[in-house]
């Protein structure tokens, strides 16, 4: 097993346990938002985004909690496999790609620093854009992830710690998701509706914003991994 690097004072280790906390937090947030996401999807999709996402994250939590600690990259890769298998529809490969890309591009083995995580998220965004041929403004998950990653990079560049940077990134991602409402969908099934897709917030952008919430939670409360297992 790799020897964990000593995290610098005041910063948080981005390691296997971080991924566990992150995925647990995402599972919680998606469960809370399940009805909301399904309602959004009922307007411009198949009304299954909420249930697909909670099914996927429940599976990811179970798989990851059973997986040995092989480092942060391996943990993300494990989650990617769970999500591709369990989510289904278009969201399975898209969310799976986010995590699989983190697993592939982060330094293997030991923990990584905040800049490496941001670089991994940038790679994940690029991979999602290649898979879906989507750009900002197409009314997709890219509309939340792109501003989220950009704000994370900007704040880390200004010397903010990870939790503070993710706090800003979360707000940017949610603003991005909200800003999809007036847009006409240009990708995915919602694009079938053409002009009728206007006036509805994109479900994929909405769930993607919660990814930043969960990252922020994982970066802010290093004790919750064990606590979350208590009844």
């Amino acid at each position, binding site marked *: 097993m790799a020897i964990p690097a000593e995290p610098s004072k005041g910063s948080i280790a981005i390691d296997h346990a971080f991924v566990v906390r992150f995925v647990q937090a995402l599972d919680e947030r998606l469960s809370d938002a399940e009805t909301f996401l399904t309602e959004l999807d009922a307007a411009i999709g198949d009304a299954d985004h909420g249930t697909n996402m909670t099914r996927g994250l429940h599976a990811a939590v179970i798989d990851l909690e059973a997986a040995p600690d092989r480092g942060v990259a391996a943990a993300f890769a494990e989650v990617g496999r769970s999500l591709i298998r369990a989510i289904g529809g278009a969201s399975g490969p898209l969310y799976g790609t986010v995590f699989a890309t983190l697993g592939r591009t982060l330094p293997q083995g030991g923990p990584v620093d905040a800049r490496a995580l941001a670089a991994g998220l940038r790679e994940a965004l690029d991979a999602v854009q290649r898979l879906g041929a989507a750009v900002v403004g197409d009314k997709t998950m890219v509309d939340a992830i792109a501003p989220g990653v950009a704000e994370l990079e900007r704040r880390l560049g200004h010397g903010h710690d990870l939790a503070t940077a993710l706090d800003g990134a979360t707000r940017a991602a949610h603003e991005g998701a909200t800003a999809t409402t007036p847009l006409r969908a240009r990708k995915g099934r919602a*694009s079938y509706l053409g002009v009728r897709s206007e006036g509805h917030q994109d479900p994929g952008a909405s769930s993607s914003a919660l990814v930043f919430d969960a990252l922020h939670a994982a970066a802010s409360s290093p004790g919750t991994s064990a606590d979350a297992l208590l009844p």
Partner: protein
Amino acid sequence: MIQSVDRAISILMELQGARRLSLTELSARLGLAISTVHGIVATLVARGLVEQDSAGHYALGAGVLRLGNVYLDSNELRLRSVPWAETLAERTGYAARVGVLMGGTVLVLHHALRPDGSRQMREIGVDLPAHGTALGKALLAYHPAPRTPLSEVAPLRRLTGRTVVELAELEREFAAIRVEGIAHAEDEIVLSESEVAAPIVDDTGVSVGAIGVVLPTTELPAERATIDAVRNAAIGISRELGATTWPGVAPSD
């Protein structure tokens, strides 16, 4: 063009997009005086094409549903296709769609839902980019000049990372479709969704529509039975339309 008729149609189109608009919003969108718009919209309300809710906002009225239904009911291809599409969905377990080519897009005339009881978007009346769907490819493969309809929507849009947007590559696909009369699409319009489709031919040998199924990409390659069911449905509808040959006349080069 009659100006007031044109404006009335613009109002209907704006309401299609925004769904609910106040008189002020409607006027701003059309760039017209409130009094002008009020006169037209009041007429549309009186004739049932537009409705006004309790908050005073305007929305499309029940009258447009009646008009749309008449369009669907009077389309002979659709009339003939509906029972075949429903049977195709039941037999294969997949959603079945029937479409016609309108320029570079496929208009979905009928959508038989996947028979698994799940909630699904109703796709009747939607426009699909022809180059991104097996329905469109089946139609374009037997079109006398496939580049003409495609030129109307050029440059061809990528709907996913796997959408084919190069004309030369599409034409190679069309040639392959003409070998068996079956068109395939894999993750090309929506990720995780793939299709098998076949052309519908009328009594003059012209392909007038297409029928196909939508299956999860994880279930590829499509089973022989699925492909046969699509082909049989296409031949069955074509026969009812008076066709004596199938899959139709190939374009002359």
